[in-house]
């Protein structure tokens, strides 16, 4: 070997040598392998399975029929027939229904009061009571929606019958009682499926967090064992911090491109999640996020002196970071401080842009702002990683 590996060729050769060495480091460390390869592959399956049913169908409810007429039985059948709920118990009183609820047998209670049918026939307003449990929002929403739907359907029939008895046409009948209608069109997630809603964000978050933790773990154990592979760079005039960063980044990004293809190409299809853009387009979009996350991870290596520290300080952050992305709590309602903090995390523009592109069928042009921010982050964190590794290399040379 020549004494001075000057020039581009030598530099590139050292980068590939670090790159190859990093693969060996990953493969020979089960802890790292668990995070970088196995967790990133298995987590999505576990979450996907939990949310695979997407919506709460046939929520169990108790129905108390104090009226006991043909009409109340018709309403009962309509309630049972809704997609939202299913009558599981028919207790004789509200007290019994309450006890069924507390025992966890039912998620909500409906009550048809005495005189329900009589009121309808007297052309007076009849009531149906619904008791829904707002301590679990999805149960609450489904029971309320189902009750609205069933009562509305029966009311609609009654209204049309009455109007047509007076010789009105169907449209006239509708116009008399509902002169202004509403057509609701939920976009991008028609059925309000929970998996469709949360999985895209969770998958991007898994990519980011496993990558950060894995990089920190590898860096931490190399620092702990003083085994940074600087030996290969001895006597080199190449900027060795740069060589290490590029070599390591190459290894991580090549693995995470495969993860991305697996997540967006396979996992989305396995769980029948909507896909509204092409795989190459998504990969082009997500690439700068991977660069930004990798360089952020390499920056943080200088904070972790021990291998276990990255996992201890990064896992708990996953949950706040998911909220900072705005997927659950809208960005518009976040306190300004947290909105600002969110702007330094790659997953924030990553999740936002990915959902627009992949779920909301936006064009690439429409997510160019997020893409640009990701590139800015990639360059910024590249700079910080360089500074961080220059420090580490100096310290190790002194030893």
């Amino acid at each position, binding site marked *: 070997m020549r004494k001075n590996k000057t020039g581009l060729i030598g530099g590139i050769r050292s980068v590939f040598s670090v790159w190859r060495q990093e693969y060996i480091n990953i493969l020979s460390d089960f*802890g790292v392998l*668990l995070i970088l390869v196995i967790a990133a592959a298995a987590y999505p399956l576990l*979450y996907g*399975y*939990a*949310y695979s*049913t997407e*919506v*709460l*169908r046939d929520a169990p409810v108790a129905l108390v029929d104090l009226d006991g007429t043909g009409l109340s039985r018709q309403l009962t059948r309509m309630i049972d027939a809704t997609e939202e709920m299913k009558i599981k118990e028919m207790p004789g009183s509200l007290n019994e229904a309450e006890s069924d609820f*507390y025992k966890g047998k039912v*998620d909500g209670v409906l009550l048809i009061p005495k005189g329900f049918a009589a009121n309808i026939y007297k*052309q007076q*307003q009849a009531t149906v*009571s*619904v008791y*829904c*449990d*707002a*301590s679990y929002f*999805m149960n*609450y929403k489904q029971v*309320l929606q189902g009750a609205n739907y069933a009562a509305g359907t029966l009311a609609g029939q009654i*209204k049309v019958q009455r109007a047509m008895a007076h010789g009105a046409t169907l449209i*006239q009948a*509708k*116009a*008399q*009682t509902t*002169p*202004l*209608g*509403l057509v609701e*069109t*939920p*976009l*991008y*997630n028609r059925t309000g499926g*929970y998996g469709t*809603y949360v999985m895209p964000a969770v998958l991007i978050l898994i990519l980011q967090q496993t990558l950060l933790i894995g990089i920190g773990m590898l860096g931490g*154990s190399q620092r702990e*064992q003083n085994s940074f592979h600087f030996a290969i760079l001895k006597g080199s005039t190449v900027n060795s911090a740069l060589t290490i960063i590029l070599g390591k980044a190459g290894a991580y990004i090549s693995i995470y491109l495969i993860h991305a293809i697996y997540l967006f190409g396979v996992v989305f299809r396995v769980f029948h999640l909507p896909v509204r853009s092409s795989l190459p387009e998504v990969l082009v979009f997500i690439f700068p996020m991977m660069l930004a996350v990798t360089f952020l991870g390499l920056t943080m290596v200088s904070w972790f002196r021990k291998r*276990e*520290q990255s*996992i*201890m300080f990064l*896992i*708990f952050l996953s*949950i706040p970071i998911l909220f900072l992305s705005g*997927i659950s*709590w809208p960005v*518009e*309602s976040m*306190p300004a*401080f*947290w909105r600002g903090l969110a702007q330094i995390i790659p997953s924030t523009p990553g999740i936002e842009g990915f*959902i*627009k592109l992949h779920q*909301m069928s936006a064009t690439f042009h*429409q997510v160019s702002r997020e893409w640009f921010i990701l590139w800015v982050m990639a360059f910024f964190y590249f700079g910080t990683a360089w500074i961080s590794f220059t420090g580490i290399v100096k310290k190790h040379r002194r030893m």
Partner: protein
Amino acid sequence: MSARRLLGRIVKWKDPMAMSDNSQHGVWNTLRRELGRMASDRVYLLLMLVLPLATFVFFITMFQGGKPENLPVAVYDADHSSLSRQVTRMIDATSSIRITREVDDLAQGKALLQEKKVYGLVVFPTGMEKDVYRGTAPNVVAYYNNAFLIPGSLLQRDIKTVVGTVSAGIALSTSEKKGSTPNQAMAQIQPIRLDTHVLFNPYTSYFYYLVSCFLPVMLQIFIMTVTVYALGTELKDGTASDWLDSAGGNVIKGLFGKMLPYSLVFLLIAFLMVIGQFSYFGMPLRGSLGLILFGTLLFVVTYQAVSIFFVSVFPSLRMCLSIASSYGAMAFTFSGLTFPYSAMPLGAKLFGMLFPFSHFLKLFIDQAFRGAPLAVDLLTIAGLSAFLVLPWLALHKLKRVSYAPEYWHRI
């Protein structure tokens, strides 16, 4: 594994003085030793006080509003009538919506939706007002972004309420003109009224709903991280035998002395978390505070128990931290709060039972929000307590690995 350390242990083992000195070796001795270890490692201060309290502040300030308000919505008004303007104003006046844009065609509105500049688009068709009075029952069309479920459902609810109110108002005045009394008219328009009782969270506040869940979610991650770290470093640094020796080789005393300081600090934080929610943030408390506090105590101790079990089964610090923290990060998903158990596949539901958090959350919701009878939560308490069995199953193994140098210094 250094030969010197091994030698040191053997010397200690053979030293008859050390053996006879066992009277001094017990819970207090281990406790004193542990306090020294806690003081010498900054990680404990960060993970037991600073970061848990910081995440509490995060979730409390994040959801402080209770409900998202003034979400941006666009209007496409092709009618330009007083009716369309009236409906627009009423929608704008709802708490969740602010009309921020007026667009001239559907394509423009669709682009705004896709760029997430607005969460919804309300369309008034041409001739809407005329059609209303001609009696052809036109429709307002509302598009809303359901990829974001919370804004989506708030928009849906508020737009529906406004259009329904306007429609009923028109129908009411028409039939009153025809000579009906208001009651008769109401019975005509709405023969069946839904009498809605929103139980347990009458303002449907997300603050109560999410804060009461995410504070303990974060706390359990910290409890497990700290417990696994405290025990696992003994193995990693090869000090495990020293730890057990400090308790005279008794693994139960050793665990008790070692865990006690962590239990006390976390209990303090957990009680602060629970009581603060009721006293400072006005969270409803309809059931038994005593039962909630007892559940909170169990919550802290069961997570320590689970962590001890993990360390015994996976006696390597890094491996065990990976497993414990993955387990902790999944607790929310499998708690059945936002995506309920009644909707989950059976396997996921059963998996959810393997998290103390699921039991704790049920107890908390039952006792704080629902005011459930105590009897229904005896089973919940039993479910939570069941996790306390775990460390007993692992005591023997823990003692064995602690005295087995081949388990030390594993990365």
